[in-house]
């Protein structure tokens, strides 16, 4: 092995580093390292002349590796690695020693700062000594995508991807796509009809040659990694052939079973065989296996008897379909925070206390009351309605700490729609703050507030209960400092948005992270807001955080464009900094196999083998191996050992 020739480039960063670190001393100390053949200081190493001098020095001094002691590698690691490559050496033989963020900016004492900078630099020099040159790994790409969740986010993402000519599979858990948006009546701030906007998109999904729609289906298992996922989808049986079903409705007329209608949030009932909405896509009835008397023609079989189209097939079986895709968009949406968690607001047990979505169904022309506002208990028109914002939101002590973002807007919309339907009614809105950032939003809220019959009360509701056929609401108006008591005909809670049920499971299946509130975690809050931490998996809609429709559509489009960009490449390059087995040391105990979060290691002939396409280079294997038989390339135990030594020298 020929002798290492490392160059060390010490950046002053103007005075950012030089003010608290004696840069000349750092350079001197590094020159004393056996492997260091060249050192240089410069006022701004990342400037054009700085970068040129690095390239020149590598060439002139026949350096085989470099260390740049400067700012965080997050900023300029790529810059200097590119320079290394430009100078003809491997980019992985360039490392950054962070002596700015981790040193000069946080220490005032120059002597101590210099000492620490030397330790940091020396440890990186020692590390670089054992860095292996390597090339990025090329992986072929499966040019198909999957979108999980058929709400507006999933629909938009699927259409955008499909319109780019990429085949996309849209997987929806429910019997129809459309999601939450399909349940809404009108949308703020324009008050246009939600279903009218959405239906054409749903139909487009159905008809698009590049979209494969799988409703009543759930993702069961995901393996592989970016560019090459293999997804197992479980498709439940609907017992109705959508191609034959004429949606004539004869079956529901004879079905003897009545169950609450989950699509109407329990406000109405449906039969065991049903269609969620008139606009459902696929436009077909679904037989609810759990409610049906038993799929047994001897016991019932009435629906099959009346079905002239012969669409009903009691022998239809669930299927598991395996799909290979290169990228996945997760758009699993939201649920409302359970009112049972809030005894102070009735705990979900007080009659005529609805949640926002129920209210949407109540005012929807397609809803149970055909758009007439009638309260559930006695089907009378409510004359006094209390809207309660932040029900479960912004309450770190008891409920959700975060702001659900859309409640201010939709409550204003609710109040407006209420007044439209019940002109002589009176609406009260309890709020903490009004947050109405968005195009036309503030104006919308202001218009609502200006209505004399809509009273905005700043404060929280302390309790509510049923009294004399009404709901008594106790609250405080913090602006006047007075307690308020309202006997309302109806109360509408703007419940917090939570990740939809099953988000935890899907996150686990996909091996993507969640944030502290359970929403899917983006890779970077600012710079990578639509990417999950796992390569090739993208996020859209309220599954990632509470958001409104325009934002959701925008994020879905962004996710789709990420997918399109990814799948437009013939091959992907992956970081080569992955695990490597030393077979001579491996005893095949399998502890690394067990520890690997990515199922990237298997045993073959008594030795561990790393699947390069799956390994993410986390090093869990290396720390678990008792024999140092597996290491992450360029972060080997040997390198860490020498870095520890350098830190303590």
């Amino acid at each position, binding site marked *: 092995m020929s002798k290492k020739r490392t160059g060390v480039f010490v950046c002053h960063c103007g005075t950012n580093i030089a003010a608290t670190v004696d840069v000349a001393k750092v350079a001197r100390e590094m020159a004393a390292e056996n492997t260091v053949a060249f050192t240089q200081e410069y006022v701004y190493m990342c400037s054009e002349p700085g970068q040129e001098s690095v390239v020149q020095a590598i060439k002139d001094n026949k350096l085989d590796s470099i260390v740049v002691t400067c700012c965080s590698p997050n900023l300029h690691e790529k810059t200097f690695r590119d320079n290394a490559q430009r100078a003809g050496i491997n980019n992985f033989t360039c490392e950054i020693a962070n002596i700015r963020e981790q040193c000069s900016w946080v220490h005032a004492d120059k002597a101590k700062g210099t000492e*620490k900078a030397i330790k940091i630099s020396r440890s990186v020099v020692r590390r670089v000594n054992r860095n292996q040159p390597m090339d990025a790994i090329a992986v072929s790409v499966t040019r198909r995508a999957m979108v999980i969740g058929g709400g507006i986010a999933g629909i938009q993402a699927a259409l955008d991807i499909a319109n780019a000519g990429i085949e996309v599979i849209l997987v929806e858990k429910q019997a129809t796509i459309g999601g939450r948006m399909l349940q809404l009546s009108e949308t703020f701030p324009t008050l246009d009809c939600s279903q009218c906007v959405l239906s054409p998109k749903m139909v487009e999904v159905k008809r698009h040659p590049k979209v494969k729609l799988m409703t009543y289906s759930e993702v069961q298992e995901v393996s592989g990694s970016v560019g090459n996922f293999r997804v197992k989808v479980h498709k439940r049986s609907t017992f109705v052939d959508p191609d034959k079903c004429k949606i004539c409705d004869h079956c529901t007329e004879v079905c003897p079973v009545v169950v609450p209608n989950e699509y109407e949030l329990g406000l109405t009932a449906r039969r065991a065989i049903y269609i969620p909405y008139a606009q459902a896509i696929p436009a077909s009835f679904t037989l609810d296996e759990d409610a049906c008397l038993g799929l047994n023609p001897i016991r019932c079989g009435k629906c099959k008897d009346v079905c002239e189209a012969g669409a009903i097939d009691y022998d239809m079986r669930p299927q598991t379909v395996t799909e290979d895709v290169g990228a996945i968009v997760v758009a699993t949406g939201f649920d409302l925070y359970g009112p049972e968690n809030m005894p102070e607001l009735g705990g979900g047990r007080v009659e005529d206390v609805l949640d926002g979505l129920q209210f949407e169904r109540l005012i929807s022309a397609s809803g149970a009351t055909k758009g007439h506002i009638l309260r559930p208990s006695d089907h009378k028109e409510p004359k006094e309605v209390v809207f309660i914002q932040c029900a479960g939101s912004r309450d770190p002590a008891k409920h959700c700490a975060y702001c659900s973002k859309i409640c201010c807007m939709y409550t204003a919309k609710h109040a407006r729609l209420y007044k439209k339907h019940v002109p002589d009614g009176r609406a009260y809105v309890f709020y903490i703050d009004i947050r109405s950032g968005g195009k036309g939003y503030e104006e919308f809220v202001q218009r609502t507030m200006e209505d004399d019959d809509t009273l905005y009360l700043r404060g929280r509701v302390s309790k509510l209960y049923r009294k004399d056929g009404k709901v008594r609401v106790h609250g405080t108006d913090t602006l006047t400092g007075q307690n308020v008591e309202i006997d309302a005909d109806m109360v509408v809670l703007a419940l917090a948005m939570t990740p939809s049920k099953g988000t935890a499971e899907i996150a686990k299946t996909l091996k993507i992270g969640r944030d502290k509130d359970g929403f899917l*975690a983006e890779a970077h809050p600012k710079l990578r807001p639509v990417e999950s931490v796992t390569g090739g998996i993208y996020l859209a809609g309220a599954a990632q955080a509470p958001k409104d429709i325009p934002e959701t559509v925008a994020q879905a489009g962004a996710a789709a464009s990420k997918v399109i960009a990814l799948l437009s490449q013939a091959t992907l390059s992956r970081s080569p*900094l992955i695990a490597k087995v030393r077979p001579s040391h491996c005893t095949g105990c399998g502890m690394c196999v067990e520890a690997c979060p*990515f199922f990237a290691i298997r045993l073959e002939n008594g030795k561990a083998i790393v699947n390069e396409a799956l390994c993410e280079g986390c*090093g869990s294997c290396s720390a678990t191996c008792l024999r140092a038989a597996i290491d992450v390339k360029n972060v080997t135990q040997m390198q860490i050992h020498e870095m520890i030594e350098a830190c303590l020298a």
Partner: protein
Amino acid sequence: MSEQQDYEPRVVAFLCKWCSSAGSDLAGVSRIQYPANATPITVPCTGAISPMYILSAFNKGADGVLVSGCHIGDCHYLEGNYLARRKMYLIMKLLEFIGVEQNRFRMSWVSAAEGAKFAQVITDFVGDLQQLGPQDKLKRAENK
């Protein structure tokens, strides 16, 4: 005691690349001052930290060893910090068992957004180590 004030503990801080190292960057960007005693070694994940590193750092003369990574649930590699939590618990208990002062080993979760917490963790740790004085239990004698 003036002697104790002069004493500067030597700390090796193993930081995961995604959270705590980024958190320390944020402390830097925010110019939050903290003692210069801890030299960071950035690793991909706390899950990559072998207990051997901890022992080795003490053996090579560290007065304290810090392991810092992503909060549970935030691991870039999903499970690395869970694995680390168990391993580090065991090594911590073992150190404690042979009579090494509890405060010589510390583990913390510092996210990329917790620059101030990072500075606080280092400040507290160095403060505690200053109380303890030099670590000579596992330290290799230079001349014997």
